[in-house]
Structure formats: structure tokens, C-alpha cells
């Protein structure tokens, strides 16, 4: 990874005969920049070309106002019920139905970045308020997002900062602001934490809202990360973001999320991205555009170099085959697999990458997919799987194996693998629809499917 030429890496990808823009590349883009799409949309993406496809993802797919209103009504109902699990289900619903996949995928990224668990906050109103905040700024201004999250009631409660007194500054938020949100380890000292924490004294939560208590604020001079003065909390946040380590840190996390789990990108490779972030005043959209148009993104360094999270795995399959099912059950199973949205495991969020896979979770993934595929509540485009595939001109198991591979596998299935899976499906049952389901379950259980 350290040998990659940054200039080549971030130059715009231009399809060639040896590396064409095809179904596999389009599926790769949709898996990373979103969750996945059906065959028809993939074919349209190929026909339109890579530049147009990226433009659509970044600029043209905004959710219609009517859909946003529907989602607002849905979340309002759930907040009224106070049911935290239903909030997670509603977000899953949005991931499935949204036209703006990139926006939702990036909101999920920030949810892991600014990890806040409903298990501790225990308040649907505040959790949804934070989710709305993340969505509002997801591909917008990172600086504004950090300022907003710093005063977000759910975040302050989660980091025990609801009461932050000048006589006993709470260092949790100051530490996480630098370590997890903006700079990363090694870019600050313990003294910086103590000084920064003083800036946030008097920041409180009352009646589910942020409150500044001037009597508890330390108005004295502070000194951290090279800054000095009677800094307020807002000024402190702005200064942290202005340090050179911030754009590099955010660029690294974006590359890890959208391009490859491993190895960790070098500073040299990330430098052009960090420069773009700084130039854009931390507007995220431009950096994402640079990533999705890049040679690196469509190269062997990126394709099949990520492991799907459970949410990516499930939503990707559901979107790919227009699946409808009981989402409350799916959300519950995702939580059991360690990817309970609204319930990140700790302040660091989900580690991702190889940590998604072990012998237990691999079995759990397969079981979840089996339940989903075979559930009585599940339909494929409101039909049986057999009827759905027939509508897509897939009439036999061999054709179906290719169809599933094109949609879901970063590394295409080899012919002998397909033959084995088909034979196994035929052996399992004589019912044609059940054979298609069996084949689908086998495809989504093999290692190739787990790669994003």
C-alpha cells in the first residue's frame, strides 16, 4: 500500500479494454457508496458510464420531499412510543427505501464515528435527534457537524458530560473529541485533554436539551494544541479541527470505510485527500467524489478488500432482490450479530473489517440469511423468488447462480463453485422455488459474498 503512487491513486478512473466499466465495477461502486441495487439499475449504471453514475450518487439522488415527510412521520410515531428498538428498525427501513443510498451509508458511517448507544441514553427523542443531526451533515460540513455533536444531548449524556463543572471538569468528551472524533491517538497530550475539558465546563443537558450554565463555566485562560486564551467550547472545537492532523485523520477513516479495510493507508497516500478536505473547508462531498472517481477505488487495492458489515450484507441483499420482510425481526438479528444500529458496542463504535468475521458470526450470518430467505413473511418484489427471477428472465438454477454472483459477489463465482452450489440446491428439494431459495442461501453463505 505504501508503494502506491498517490498521484495515480487519486486521478480519475478512465475505463480501458483491460479494466472496463462493467457490471462488476458498477456493483462494486454501489456496494461501497451505498448498499446495493438490482440488476436493472446496474445495467443502467453501466450504460451511463462511471462519471455519470458517481455524479448521480453524489448529487442527483436526493430523497423526494414526500419520502422525507413519510420518514419524519414514522420517526415521530416511534419517538412517541419511546421504543428504541423500533428506531433501529425505522432506520433499516430508510436504508432499504431511500433513493439517496450514499447519504444513508455515510450517516451510518458517522453513527459509528460519533458512536452513541441508546442502551445508555435510553431516550428515543434524543437518539432520533442525534440521528437527524448526523443525516443533516453527513456529506456536508464536518466542522459544523462536530460543533453540533459537541452540544448534542445524547452525546453529552453518553459521555457523562451532562454535568460538567468548573471545579471538576469532565475529561471524557475532551478526550474523545481529539482521540476518536478529530485527530486520533498520538496527536495530543494528557495536558491538552485537561485544558480542553475546561473549555466545556458549564455544558449541560436539561429537559433533553443543551444548556450553557455560565456559573459552572471556567472562563480562565486555557492552553492546548498550541492555542492560548479564554477559549469557549465552540472556539475549542474549531481549534481542534484546524490542526493539521484533523484532515488526515478524517481522510484515513473515509478511506478505511469506503476503499479498503487493510492495510492502513499511509500519510503520503492520504495527503491529496486531506488537502482536498482542507481546501473544501471540510465539506465531505468533494472528498467522497474524489474517492469514488479514483483509480484506487476501482483497482485491486480496493475491490474485494473489505468485509461487509451485517447491515451492508442484509440491506444489500434486500435491495438487490426487492425483498420485503418483517424488519423488526431483521433488526433484532442484526443486534445479535453485533451490528445493532443505535446500539454501538462502545464509544469507539464498530471496529469493522476482520472483526465482523469469526466462526460464530459466520454461522450467525448464514442463519440470519436463511431465516430471511425462508421466512413466510418474505417476498421478492411481492412475489415468490421463482416468479421474481422469471420476471428478470432467469429461468434455471445455472442462470440464477450467475445472477446472484453478479449482484452480490465482489469476486465472481467460478463455474465449478456454481455447479457445486446448484447440485446441492437440487439435492435439498424438488420444489423449484425452494431450489432457488436454497441456491440463494448458499451463495450468501460463501466467503466471496462476505466481501464488500
Amino acid at each position, binding site marked *: 500500500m505504501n508503494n502506491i503512487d498517490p498521484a495515480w491513486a487519486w486521478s480519475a478512473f478512465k475505463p480501458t479494454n483491460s479494466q472496463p466499466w462493467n457490471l462488476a465495477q458498477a456493483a462494486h461502486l454501489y456496494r461501497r457508496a451505498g448498499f446495493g441495487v438490482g440488476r436493472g439499475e446496474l445495467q443502467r449504471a453501466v450504460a451511463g458510464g462511471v462519471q455519470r453514475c458517481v455524479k448521480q450518487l453524489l448529487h442527483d439522488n436526493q430523497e423526494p420531499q414526500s419520502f422525507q415527510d413519510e420518514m419524519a412521520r*414514522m420517526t415521530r*410515531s416511534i*419517538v412517541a*412510543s419511546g421504543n428504541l428498538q423500533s428506531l433501529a428498525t425505522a432506520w433499516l*427501513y430508510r436504508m432499504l427505501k431511500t433513493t439517496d443510498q450514499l447519504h444513508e451509508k455515510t450517516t451510518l458511517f458517522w453513527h459509528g464515528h460519533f458512536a452513541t448507544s441508546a442502551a445508555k441514553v435510553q431516550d428515543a427523542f434524543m437518539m432520533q435527534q442525534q440521528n437527524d443531526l448526523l443525516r443533516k451533515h453527513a456529506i456536508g460540513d464536518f466542522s459544523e457537524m462536530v460543533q453540533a455533536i459537541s452540544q448534542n444531548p445524547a452525546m453529552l449524556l453518553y459521555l457523562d458530560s451532562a454535568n460538567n463543572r468548573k471545579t471538576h471538569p469532565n475529561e471524557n468528551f475532551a478526550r474523545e473529541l481529539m482521540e476518536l472524533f478529530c485527530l486520533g491517538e498520538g496527536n495530543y497530550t494528557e495536558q491538552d485533554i485537561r485544558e480542553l475539558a475546561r473549555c466545556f465546563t458549564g455544558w449541560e443537558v436539561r429537559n433533553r436539551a443543551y444548556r450553557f450554565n455560565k456559573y459552572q463555566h471556567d472562563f480562565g485562560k486555557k492552553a492546548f494544541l498550541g492555542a492560548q486564551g479564554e477559549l469557549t467550547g465552540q472556539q475549542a472545537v474549531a481549534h481542534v479541527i484546524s490542526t493539521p492532523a484533523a484532515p488526515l485523520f478524517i481522510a484515513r477513516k473515509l478511506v478505511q470505510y469506503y476503499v479498503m479495510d487493510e492495510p492502513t493507508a499511509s500519510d503520503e497516500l492520504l495527503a491529496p485527500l486531506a488537502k482536498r478536505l482542507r481546501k473544501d473547508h471540510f465539506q465531505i462531498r468533494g472528498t467522497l467524489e474524489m474517492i469514488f472517481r479514483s483509480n484506487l477505488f476501482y483497482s485491486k487495492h480496493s475491490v474485494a478488500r473489505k468485509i461487509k458489515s451485517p447491515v451492508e450484507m442484509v440491506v444489500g441483499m434486500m435491495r438487490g432482490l426487492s425483498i*420485503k420482510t418483517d424488519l423488526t425481526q431483521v433488526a433484532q438479528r442484526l443486534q445479535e450479530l453485533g451490528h445493532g444500529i443505535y446500539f454501538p458496542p462502545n464509544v469507539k463504535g464498530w471496529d469493522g473489517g476482520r472483526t465482523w468475521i469469526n466462526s460464530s458470526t459466520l454461522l450467525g450470518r448464514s442463519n440470519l440469511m436463511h431465516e430471511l430467505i425462508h421466512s413466510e413473511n418474505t417476498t421478492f418484489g411481492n412475489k415468490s423468488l421463482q416468479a421474481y427471477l422469471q420476471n428478470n428472465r432467469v429461468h434455471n438454477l445455472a442462470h440464477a447462480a450467475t445472477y446472484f454472483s453478479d449482484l452480490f459477489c465482489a469476486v465472481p463465482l467460478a463455474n465449478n463453485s456454481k455447479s457445486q452450489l446448484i447440485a446441492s440446491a437440487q439435492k435439498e428439494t424438488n420444489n423449484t422455488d425452494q431450489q432457488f431459495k436454497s441456491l440463494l442461501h448458499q451463495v450468501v453463505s460463501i466467503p466471496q459474498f462476505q466481501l464488500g
Partner: protein
Amino acid sequence: MSAARLFAVCCLIIAPSAISAQSNFHDLLPESTAAVLQIQEPGEILQQFLTHPVINSVYDAGLYDELIDDAQRAQIETLQNIIQDITGLPWEDAIKQASSGGVHLAFDPSSEGVLLVLRGDEVVLDKVFDAVLSWLQPLAALSGNPLKKGEYREGIIGYQIQEIRFAKKAGTLVVTNSRDLGRFVLDQLIDPTTHPTFASNKNYQAATVNSKPQQHTAWLWADAKLLQQNNGLEQLEQAMRQNMLLELLAGGLVNQLAKSPYITAAIDFDHQHLKLDLTTAHDAEWIPESRQYYFGADANGSAPSLLLPTDTIASISMFRDFSPWWLLAPDLYDDDVNEGIAQADTTLSQFFSGKDFGLDILGALEPGAQLVVTDNQFADDAPQPDIIFPAFAIVGTLENSETMQAELRRIFINFAGFLNVISAMEGNPQLDIELVDSKKDRIITTSFIPPLAGQPISVQYNFSPTILFKDDKLILSSTRLLAEKLRDGNQEAESAKRNSNRGNWTTNTHLTLLAGPLASILRKNREILITNNMLENSSDREEAETQIDLLISMVQLTNALDITIKSTSKQLALSFELKFQPDSK
């Protein structure tokens, strides 16, 4: 194939029997028969069913299409066309005439046989039979179970598909799964004097004295041993021992079922209502001491009047003597339930200043309880939550009103204070308490302090817990408005309209559900219902709206559901009556 075959069998059942007008149905059955079901006019029922507004709504909503796939629908339509072609009548009329003599079902445990006998116009029955045969034969052959044919006695032709056997003799069609049972019936048709029959069954004769089969759409008699000997009662008893509410609602029925020699069920159906009356024999001697709380010491306890304030969704009134029920709980429930009761007893006794909860507190209530659930109403300036819960209230009568009023008032105020402490710890809204004393009554009511601007209105704002004393009446309500309605309303008059104390019957329990207010509260919660539907089915909003609106419209097609338990000195009846909207004919 299975649905089509079932339909075919139903059609065959409906076909008529002119032949043996001289022989009663029970004369055809063996002495060992344990259950019979008689349907007097199946054609009329079919007509009522097909033209019923609820069924039409189901059809219009496309639910019928979800139940039956295209292939099954095609088979049914083919059969209908064949019947029409062969009989020259619309298929509904053909079936009506073919079954004009009634349909009868029976179960004979000695042969493990189920029998269906259908009687009607001989000519039409023959044609319908031929139509069904011509439809069934190719289907049976295709399924690998071809129709077999053979001659029995005196020219009677018998047919068989797998274990189903059927034969026809002069206007009577016989269908059964038992060869022996089928032969018995055919023998009786040929020579009615051959064997002793079910007609001599004393319990059956006794049941028909009190309930006339011919007065009902359908009428069932069953030997209670069927229930008593097949673990049915044991399972019911076990469920009661583990569930306090189930015991309270239906515990009294178990002993009667265990002792009664028979059970009857009378069903009435038309566009106005669907009614089911289940009846057993009843005897005060059968009631053990542990269940005297259910019927009273004289086995004749009468439920108080049913409360029906405006916007009532559900109301239940029942005779129950709670003090002996609580004190005899060890005889009624399993150990784990009794452990919970013992803990609750200690806690509640402490709550009531050391008074014995079972003896002193429940003992201060006269037998009987009334519970009412209504649509929830809000004042214009009151905070209204997004999710509306129904209001509910319990009404009882105090034996020692003056003493108990003071005690309960103090407990209620303590409880509100306790809730405020808990709410403060969890950041929930606080209750304000108000005491209103007048010559007529005494009210202690609470209300949640309105939320600050911008804060969500939580579900707690559905409640304004209130306790109201009027004379010897105690009203404990989830809202002040409902408590005042119950104080002011003319309950007796309203209740009298629905009173089921008729003749020498005494009503023990009466539950009523009213569709109008139920639809109203469903409409108020339409948004959360739509949300749940979207999440549970991944459906689009439009689909979810359609389904929820259909649910509400289906509720609106009905008027009310009444469930009653009533008794005489000889009989005990459990009745269900679903009333449809009168204007939905």
C-alpha cells in the same frame, strides 16, 4: 387440489335427500354416536354468506385473491360451470335445492368415523352429484388417486377416493371416512329397523328438550366425554392454574364441563348477527368451595349492571367475590403463582397500613366488579400525545363506605406522590393533585404538568388518574373525564338495553365490545399503526395505509360483540354474539 376437493365435498354435502323424508337423521346413526351437527338450510346459509357485506368487503379488498391462488380459483369456477350446465340452474340455486333437506354431520368414536349426510330435491341432487363426479374424476386421476366405484346393496353405487367414501340413495347423499359407519347408515336407509340407533340416547333427548335444533342455523350436540376423556379439560384446568385472569374470567365453567353429560352449541347467522350459544348442564352441587367466589354461595350470583358511558369501547361486568377468591388462591393456582400472590399480599397489606389485603380490603368490597374502557377525550388546551391510549375505569361497591373512603383516599395520594418521585428520577412529567369535595361526591384527581415548549408530549399525558367516591360507589379511573362520566351517567338505563337477564336466566358475566368507538381510537392511532405495518412488512406507505384503512373499515362493518355467561338452576350457557351494522344489508 385440496381446497377444490373440500369445496366439492361441501357441494356434495349440500345436495338434497328427498328419499327418506320418513327417517330422521338420528335414526340413521349408530347408538355409539358421540357428536352430531345439524344444519337445517345450508343453501340459505350459503346465500347469506355470499351476500354478506363483510364477505363482500373481504372480496372487494382482494383478500379472497390472497387466500386462493389462480389454479384453485379456476377449478372452482370450472365446477360451478359444470353444475350450471348439468342442472340448468345457477350454481347457487342448484346447491340450495340439492341441500333443501339439510346437512348433518356426526362422529362415531367406535368406528372413528366422521359422517356427512345431505338431503334435498332428488332430481337436482342427482344432477349436482353427476356434475361433481365429472369434475372430480379427472382431478382424482391426475393426483394419482383415481376414483373407485363399486356396488353395495340393492343397486346402491359406492365411490371412493383414498379414505373418503360416498354413496347416494334416493335423495340422500352419504359421505364418510369409515366403511363400517357408511354401511350402517346405508343399511338403515334400506331397512330402518335393523339396529338400535342414536335416537335412543337419553342425554341427546334431554338436550333437545331445552334447545330445539330446528330453531337455529346450525345446532351441535356432543357427548361431554369427548372433552373429558381427551385431556381437553385437564389442559384447560392447567392453564387456569397458571393464569389468574383466565381463572377469574372462566374458572367457573370448568367444573360444570367436567360433570355435565353433554354440550350443545346453537349457531344463528344472518346479515344482522352471528351468534353462538354453548350450553352444558348445571348443578350447584358440582361447584367446589374454591370456586364459590365465581357463582356465589347460592350458585346464583348476578353481575352488576353493565357500564356504558358514551364512547365505550369495552365493558365487562361480572359477579365475583374477590375476598374468598384471594384467600382460597392456594387451592386454585400453582405454586409459582401462589408465591407471587403471597408476595403481593405482603406488599399490599403494608401499602394499606398493615390491614390484611385479602380479608380487610377485598372483604370491604361487595361481590361484583365493573370495568369499562372508552375512547380517550382531551380538552382543547390539554397536551395530546401522538399515541392515544383508551381511558379505563374500575367500579366497585364499598361495604363500609366511610372508613374505606378515608383509607383509599390516603393510599391514592401516597401513590401519586410515589409516582412523582419515580418520575423525577427518570425525567418524566410530574403529577399535580387536586381534591374536590362536594355534598354529592368526593374526587381526588391528578393531572400531569404540561411539557415545556418543544418537548415531546409523552404517552403519560393519556392519563389523569382519579379516584371518585359517590355514596357507596368507588370509581378508580385512568382519567378524570371518565370518572365524572361514570358518576353522572344513567348507567342503569343504558345497561338495561343490553341486559341479558332474561326469563329465568341469571347473568354471571357480561362483556361487550362496541365497534364505533373502537374504530375511532384506531383512527386516532392510524399513524403508529401505519408505521408498525411498514416496519413489519417493509411495505410502502401507500400499501400500509390501504391495509390499516381496510382494518378500520372492517371494524366499522360490525356493531358490537357480546359475550355472556349465564345460568339457570339446570343449565349453564356461554354465548357469543357478533352484531353487524344494521345499515349494511
